[in-house]
């Protein structure tokens, strides 16, 4: 069902866990749908993402897309990270089953939420974590 790359990122997640001194934190999804992703960014004065970490409640694809998203933005500038798309995550994982594509969308949204939190904090008005409750009510695949 999953590609080797997905299984590799699931079994050996990269950048898992909170980041000390993070200055951009975002959380998306909801437990009702079965996926929550939390993204931690440590952005330096030059606007480069020095360190990144994630925590995820969800299926194998949710863990793998979070892990891959952190790899794709680590060491990049904020502007580059904002360009991260869900399809780039899927491509880097060498594909996802159709029913799991929403996980890659969530990974993209988690990065955005963390960056929003970074900007908000710079303006001195943000809470510790930017929590965006998103649901993904998709059309159910045909039974059988």
């Amino acid at each position, binding site marked *: 069902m999953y590609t080797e790359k997905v299984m590799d990122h699931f079994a050996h997640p990269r950048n898992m*866990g909170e980041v000390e001194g993070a200055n951009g934190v975002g959380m998306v999804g909801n437990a009702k749908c079965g996926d929550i992703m939390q993204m931690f960014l440590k952005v330096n004065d030059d606007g480069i993402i020095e360190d990144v970490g994630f*925590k*995820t409640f969800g*299926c*194998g694809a949710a863990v793998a897309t979070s892990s891959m998203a952190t790899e794709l933005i680590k060491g990049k500038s904020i502007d580059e990270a904002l360009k991260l798309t869900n399809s780039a995550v899927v491509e880097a994982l060498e594909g996802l089953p159709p029913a799991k594509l*929403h996980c890659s969308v969530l990974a993209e949204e988690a990065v955005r939420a963390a960056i929003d939190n970074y900007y908000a904090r710079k303006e001195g008005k943000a809470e510790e974590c930017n929590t965006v409750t998103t649901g993904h009510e*998709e059309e*159910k695949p045909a039974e059988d």
Partner: protein
Amino acid sequence: MRQVYMDNAATTALNKEVLEAMTPYFTEIYGNPSSLHTPGQLAHKAVANARQQVAKALGAEDAEREIIFTGGGSEADNMVLLGIAQRYQKKGKHIITTNVEHHAVLYTCQRLEKMGYEVTYLPVDEYGRITAQQVADAIRPDTILVSVMFGNNEVGTLMPIPEIGAVCREKGVFFHTDAVQAVGHVHINVKEMNIDMLSLSAHKFHGPKGVGALYVRKGIVIPALITGGAQEHNKRAGTENVPGIVGLGKAIELACGSIDENAPRMTRLRDKLITRIPELIPEVKLNGHPTERLPGNVNFSIKYIEGESILLMLDLNGIAASSGSACTSGSLDPSHVLLAMGLPHEIAHGSLRLTLGDDTTEEDVDYVLEVLPAIVKRLRAMSPLYHE
């Protein structure tokens, strides 16, 4: 790495004795049971013998008239619901079932609703049970069928079948039970339990896949679901799956003949898992009834983590298990059974089902108990919902 199969509610390994019984019917005795010649009649005899084995295992009176072979449990369920609805619609268009049935029953009921039938879905309690009183209260003059599963495929809960059977018999309403998970694992007697119709599937008791049977009490008329031939007394067209039917017969004979040895052994292993898992892992909840459950079923919700992740991690450690997680079913909703029992969505997503078989050993159970706590710890460390 040690390989442990704990998904026997999904399917079981074919018993070697069953395979031996089946083999000649692929290559040597390959005649069509409808043919008049000797090879055909030998195949016919084998099918008739299997029918006797099924009737005997269920306590049915008349094998020839009461046992119909089908392509599996789902087909048997479809045949009962659609057939009774069609044949007895003049009496009424009301059917009673529960909200934890297998989809073979639930989706067929939904089809019937679209065709103008009315279905009452009795709600279960926190353990996944209904009472006979609920059935009695729901029966109306236009009720034509009550369909309640014997043992639940996800949480293992056993329904009070003899009591429901007695209520239905007293009120004169047909009673069907989907006993796919129960046959071969707990004692069943259709006469003593007042069961009018019963569905079963061979591969759930170490028989082959793709073959099942339906018991229909003499006097009840179920029209054919598949037409085109006179096989199975005009009830199921198509050349009989002779090796499969022979395998079903042998498997049911072996399984029902060894319940007294296997059930206590499996119950002991089941209860070891049920006792030890909460001791080793904090914040878990047993799903299903603590004692009124199938001998091989263990189902836990493990808080703060998601079911598919647990399965994948177990699989990486050589353990095959199952989950009521949405992610394993291709939809975003977790198990309808767990939701019906009142579990919140987030907890229903984190369920783990371990189902034991005849071949499960104490060492298998110990291996699961060794591996599972570390997996849960690791996934919880990854979870934004978990705070130690």
